[in-house]
């Protein structure tokens, strides 16, 4: 193979960051829900997939991608609210495996429903016209849409940070995550707070699914692969840590990308190798709090 140039390595690094952006977007929802509710949401991939299909449906009835960017997170968020209220709430206080098994089963139901409604084969998802094609980023050509994904991820992260850190509601959420007992004693309705957190987490999952659709189309099984990889991201970043999810998501993207450059056949394995190394050196992940799982 031809020699490595600086441009190629830079481009590869960039491809890794773009790939990492999707991991980040997926993993922060997962981390948010786990960090606040200690619910391991195995249906997160299914919400992601439904996000792509809702987008597909909206476009097919005359909507466009920009409308979807707003409508899909709202739709999936509302769906998430309903799921929390009806299915997950009765399981609080019963140990971590109850909601885990519930969401695991729910993901199968959701995937099967989409298969029934839309068929097994999946559909292509056109990249919005203004975001088609590649642009020169100095080190080579890079798809415009992937740049957009990086930007959209940054916007979501910023909004989430402002919400959690700068609003009084965010303050309550953070307090509730640290000690729900005390917050309850102070007269805050914790269950309402958890409801909203679950809704936000699933809304971001739906948003991530919509963003991923123009890259790879929509199929019922699309949530499965990314769920496995996103769990790696949350474990590496530290279960429940949003900052950790961001750092780990980008890192996983870059590791996959750099491995692809030198040993493409190792790319898939590299994710899990990274996880193994991190777990040996730092079992709680980058920013994880010890004891959250117990």
């Amino acid at each position, binding site marked *: *193979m*031809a020699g490595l*140039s600086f*441009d*190629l390595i830079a*481009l*590869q690094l960039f*491809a*890794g960051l*773009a*790939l990492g952006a999707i991991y980040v977007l997926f993993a922060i929802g997962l981390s948010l829900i786990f960090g606040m509710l200690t619910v391991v949401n195995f249906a997160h991939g299914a919400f992601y997939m439904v996000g792509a299909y809702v987008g*597909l*449906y909206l*476009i*097919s*009835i005359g909507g466009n991608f920009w409308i979807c960017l707003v409508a899909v997170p709202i739709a999936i968020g509302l769906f998430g609210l309903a799921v929390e209220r009806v299915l997950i709430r009765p399981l609080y206080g019963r140990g971590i495996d109850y909601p885990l098994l519930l969401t695991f089963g729910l993901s199968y139901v959701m995937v099967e429903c989409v298969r*029934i*409604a*839309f*068929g*097994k*084969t*999946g*559909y*292509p998802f*056109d*990249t919005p016209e203004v975001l*088609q*094609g*590649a642009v020169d980023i100095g080190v*080579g*050509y*890079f*798809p415009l*849409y*992937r740049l957009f994904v990086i930007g959209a991820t940054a916007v979501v992260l910023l909004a989430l940070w402002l919400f959690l850190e700068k609003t009084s509601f965010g303050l309550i959420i953070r307090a509730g995550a640290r000690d729900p007992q005390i917050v309850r004693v102070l007269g805050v309705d914790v269950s309402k707070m958890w409801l909203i957190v679950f809704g936000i987490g699933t809304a971001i999952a739906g948003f991530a699914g919509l963003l991923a659709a123009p*890259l*790879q*189309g929509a*199929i019922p099984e*699309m949530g499965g*692969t990314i769920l496995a990889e996103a769990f790696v991201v949350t474990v590496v970043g530290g279960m429940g840590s949003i900052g950790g999810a961001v750092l780990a998501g980008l890192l996983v993207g870059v590791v*996959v*990308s750099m491995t*692809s*450059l030198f040993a*493409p*056949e190792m*790319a*898939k394995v590299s994710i899990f190798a990274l996880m193994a190394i991190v777990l040996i050196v730092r079992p709680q992940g980058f920013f994880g709090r010890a004891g959250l799982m117990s």
Partner: protein
Amino acid sequence: MTNKVTKAGSISRRRLLTTASAGAALAVSPFRINLLKAEEAAIKIGFPVPLTGPYGAEAQDQVRAGQLAVAQFNDAGGLNGRKAELIVRDDRLNPGEAATRTLELVEKEKVNFVVGSLSAAVQLAINNVTKERGVIFNSISQSDAINEAADFSKHTFHEALNPHMTSGAVGRYAFAKFGKRVAFLTADYAYGHEMVRGFLEVGKEFNVENLGDIRHPLGTTDFSTLLPRLQALKPDILCISNFGRDQQIALKQATDFGIKKSIQIIAPLLSHASRVAAGPQAFEGVVGGCSFYWGIEDKFASTKAFNDAFRKTYDGKLPTDYGALGYGGVRTVLEAVKGAGSVETDKVVAALEALKYDDYKGPQYYRKCDHQSVQSVLVIKSKSKDLRNESDVFEVLSTEEPNEKNLRTCEALGHKS
């Protein structure tokens, strides 16, 4: 678009539901034994294909066209009134699953023949089962190994093209036209490996320079980390040897990366169903091969007849490449049954070996030593303009006529004769 989305979904769902509920009703019915007895006379063809997974779109077409071949056989009176029946199973693109399903078809359903598969690897698993049980298997998916003495048995037939023929035809066309510097992006399993081997073999005649072969696992959804490297190799030709959704996604992302600006993309096989599923943009300008394209109906009466029958059965839809293979695979077996006047395995094998047929794409026959169907290979290009209908997706650039010279020799495959 909505209509299209939900309609396509509901058709296959309805069929699935009727099949499933009929099966369930049969299973719980107290008349089951009687029913089975009454059905004993039916000629059963097991049809394992990957309905779920990345090759699902193609597999559904195989089923549609296979059912058409059975319906035609039955409408023509069957074998002295004895009707045929297609028993479809989902092998999930998994060799283990396929072997189990095939064993079930043979042991429980007592099928007379097995036709099907869509994967170079999975068909070998099916073949292992049928070989051992002495059941005729007509494979409708590409493989080189299935021709070789190690995997071959007298019960093994191969209606599909093999990678050697396909890559040979595409390579001879592309290397002469687009340049000698070639890079490969390859699905990391038998299909991809055999295609690359075929390309490199024919490449020797053209002094092709192999710049590198990047392999990806089956079912990859993101090629963005592989494409910059391929681009940096600055090839004249990028040869992408994968299939189904992998092909759709790889071509879409390669287009997004602007690879087509300076590099000609070729593929050993351009799948019709994938091209329709992915839309014109991703496939635009890509050159590849195929075993069948409905557009050759101007040239062959058999193609016209097949297209018309398919249109009539499936609301004006036209058959695809893999659909045609499903049709051909089932039809030749039933033709041989008719010719032999029996479903007895040895007689049908002899009838298949003697068959000279033109069922859907011009003249074909099964070569004696490896039961490979000797047939034409079409070199096609995906088009995006002046589309006459939703199936008008390819332009036939050239045709390699049926010729045993384009196959590996019987000796090279390890056969005695």
